[in-house]
């Protein structure tokens, strides 16, 4: 890409470009580089410590709420049993303990991992695409995963979400296929221009959504209802083994992305700048892109489509901690985890004994906030 070519101007906001060229002091520059927030070890540790403590507190608090009355005493006894005996056998035979240990606890943990993953992926994509609207769903990877799962359900092979998770595997395959397709679509001369990537994602999303809708329209009404319910987001934990697999995915991907946090910081200044500073932009973009798609595929295949976490949480966190990705990434992950745990607790309890899809709660909580940003803080957004 030639400096100053139209592609460059379309792939990053004009204000940012003019900022860099003219050294202006518009709001956008403050957005990415807050004055006076040089990241020190002390600040990082303080912020992360506070957020980690808050996360633990939120999880313990949400463990107390549910459709059934399982009080703090049960929670404590189960916890002590769990810590002393160290396995599930200790809490056998007692319904309250089973509810706490095998339904509520895995579900809260699942919410935390899924929310954290979505938020971290959102941060990464927003930096990669230098587009505040980027979110795991924009790329169509989630739709691909959902389509894979829908096909599995249609063929009647996707059933068990527990021991042998056929459905997640199909979803994962679908997500990866979507990713490969996006690569083929958006690649031109060995490069990955940001705007064509976004466009490819949008188009692919439309196609995949249409295919999912087609599948639901030819399914038995009962099965399509189940599929739609799953698509709207569900954190019914398939049990600890599956949870462990998802945690492994999340930790693996987040560690690698954190490793590239500095590169992300430079990338947000624009690709020309990044390249002039000796960053291999194309290679890093591809790596991070594959990583985020992997994690998104894994998350979606387990929990369906939960929107807004990856879009709204990074924004809120950026307003508070600034935009140094070394802090923004882990902080967003923790806040995203908390956000989804709280949302899911509402989803579990509002209509008890019935539940509502958690995607509805996240959209209702996150949507208005996002509109507010869009309407009243346009200078900071676009």
């Amino acid at each position, binding site marked *: 890409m030639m400096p100053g070519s139209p592609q460059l101007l379309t792939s990053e906001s004009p204000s940012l470009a003019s900022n860099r060229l003219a050294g202006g002091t518009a709001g956008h520059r403050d957005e990415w580089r807050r004055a006076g927030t040089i990241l020190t070890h002390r600040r990082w540790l303080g912020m992360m410590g506070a957020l980690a403590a808050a996360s633990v507190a939120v999880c313990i608090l949400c463990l107390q709420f549910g459709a*059934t009355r399982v009080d703090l005493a049960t929670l404590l006894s189960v916890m002590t049993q769990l810590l002393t005996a160290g396995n599930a056998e200790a809490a056998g035979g007692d*319904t309250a303990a089973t*509810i706490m240990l095998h339904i509520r606890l895995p579900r809260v943990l699942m919410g935390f991992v899924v929310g954290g993953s979505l938020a971290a992926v959102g941060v990464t994509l927003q930096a990669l695409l230098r587009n505040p609207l980027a979110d795991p769903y924009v790329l169509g990877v989630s739709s691909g995963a959902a389509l894979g799962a829908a096909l599995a359900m249609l063929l009647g092979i996707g059933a068990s979400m527990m021991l042998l998770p056929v459905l997640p595997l199909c979803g994962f395959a679908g997500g990866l296929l979507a990713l490969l397709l996006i690569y083929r679509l958006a690649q031109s001369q060995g490069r990955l221009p940001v705007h064509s990537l976004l466009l490819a994602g949008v188009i692919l999303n439309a196609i995949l959504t249409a295919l999912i809708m087609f599948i639901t329209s030819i*399914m038995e009404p009962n099965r399509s209802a189940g599929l739609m319910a799953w698509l709207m987001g569900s954190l019914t934990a398939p049990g600890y083994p599956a949870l462990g697999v998802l945690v492994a995915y999340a930790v693996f991907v987040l560690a690698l992305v954190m490793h590239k946090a500095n590169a992300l910081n430079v990338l947000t200044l624009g690709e020309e700048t990044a390249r002039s500073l000796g960053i291999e932009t194309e290679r890093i973009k591809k790596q991070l892109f594959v990583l985020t798609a992997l994690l998104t595929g894994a998350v979606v295949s387990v929990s369906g489509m939960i929107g807004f976490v990856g879009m709204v949480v990074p924004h809120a966190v950026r307003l508070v901690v600034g935009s140094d990705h070394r802090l923004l990434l882990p902080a967003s992950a923790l806040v995203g985890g908390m956000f989804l745990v709280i949302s899911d607790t509402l989803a579990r309890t509002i209509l008890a004994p019935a539940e509502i899809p958690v995607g509805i709660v996240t959209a209702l909580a996150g949507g208005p906030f996002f509109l507010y940003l869009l309407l009243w803080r346009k200078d900071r957004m676009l």
Partner: protein
Amino acid sequence: MNSCGRWILTGVTLAVAIVTGGSIAWACGEGGCADMTRRQQGILTGMPFMAHVSSRSFVDDAGRKMYLAKTPVRIVSLAPSVTEMLFAIGAGEQLIGVTDFCDYPPEAKAKPKLGYAHPNLESLMALQPDLVLAPQEFLKPDVILKLEQLKVPVFILSATTVEDILGHIQTLGRMLDRSVQANAIAMTLRQDVAAIRLRMQNMSPVRVLYVLNSHPLITVGPGSFIDQLLRIAGATNVAAQSQLPYPRMSLEVVLQQDPEVLLFPIGKAEGISDSEQQAWRQWQTMTAVRRGRLHQIPADLLNRPGPRIGQALTMLVNILHPEIAAGPSSQP
């Protein structure tokens, strides 16, 4: 000069406006409005107003009235349950179009297919039906409107209770001159249901969870047809508190309510797979799991508010109360 011209223009405009308005008002007073009133009178007096409901007119479940001058001979059914009813009362011959899911009785499979949730209107018109029987939930208002414009009589049947089904069978019997057969079937069904109700009076109800979908858990609640069948067959639905016909149910509440029987609807292309059923066995505290009472039941038998509800109820009773031998069920 300029201002003068503007005044003249304004004056002329005003004059024209007054004259036009006046003439319109005058015309309306003289002819135009009189014409309207005359037409209105025509609406009030010129229609064949039916003070009585003749034996050839019917009111469907959407409250729409239909008058059949002669017995329909080219019928389209847009619901598997309606198809079953038509065959049951011996009107299968007149059936010229069915949905993709109409698979019972076997003869139904040979009929032309019209889709399901979005029936193909062109194929429908090409069949030249003189009666279309449709369920409320799968036919969109715009489709009904379109068919009305095309002068195709559409009759909506929406069944949520056993009584509805009996009523539908008898209505279809009257429509198609099959009243004798239809009344006999309705009578038998009514007796079967009453007998089962009577037998269940002295039984203590069994707590049941009906698993429509495992992940997330979806079951049947109050207001759904299956919930009513379960209650007739001597079951207490653990989702009774949910107040929704098809709730996403909290697994916590299920464990707390402790169902004694788990029911899995199964079918050809639908239903809960074996591995999914096995996964339910992880809930060791559940009475149903401890006693190994995870049962399968044919999905279309319970899902369809049709003439096979007698069989469905008998099967349910056999599953829920194996201690009593269910009486012979009558085959429609």
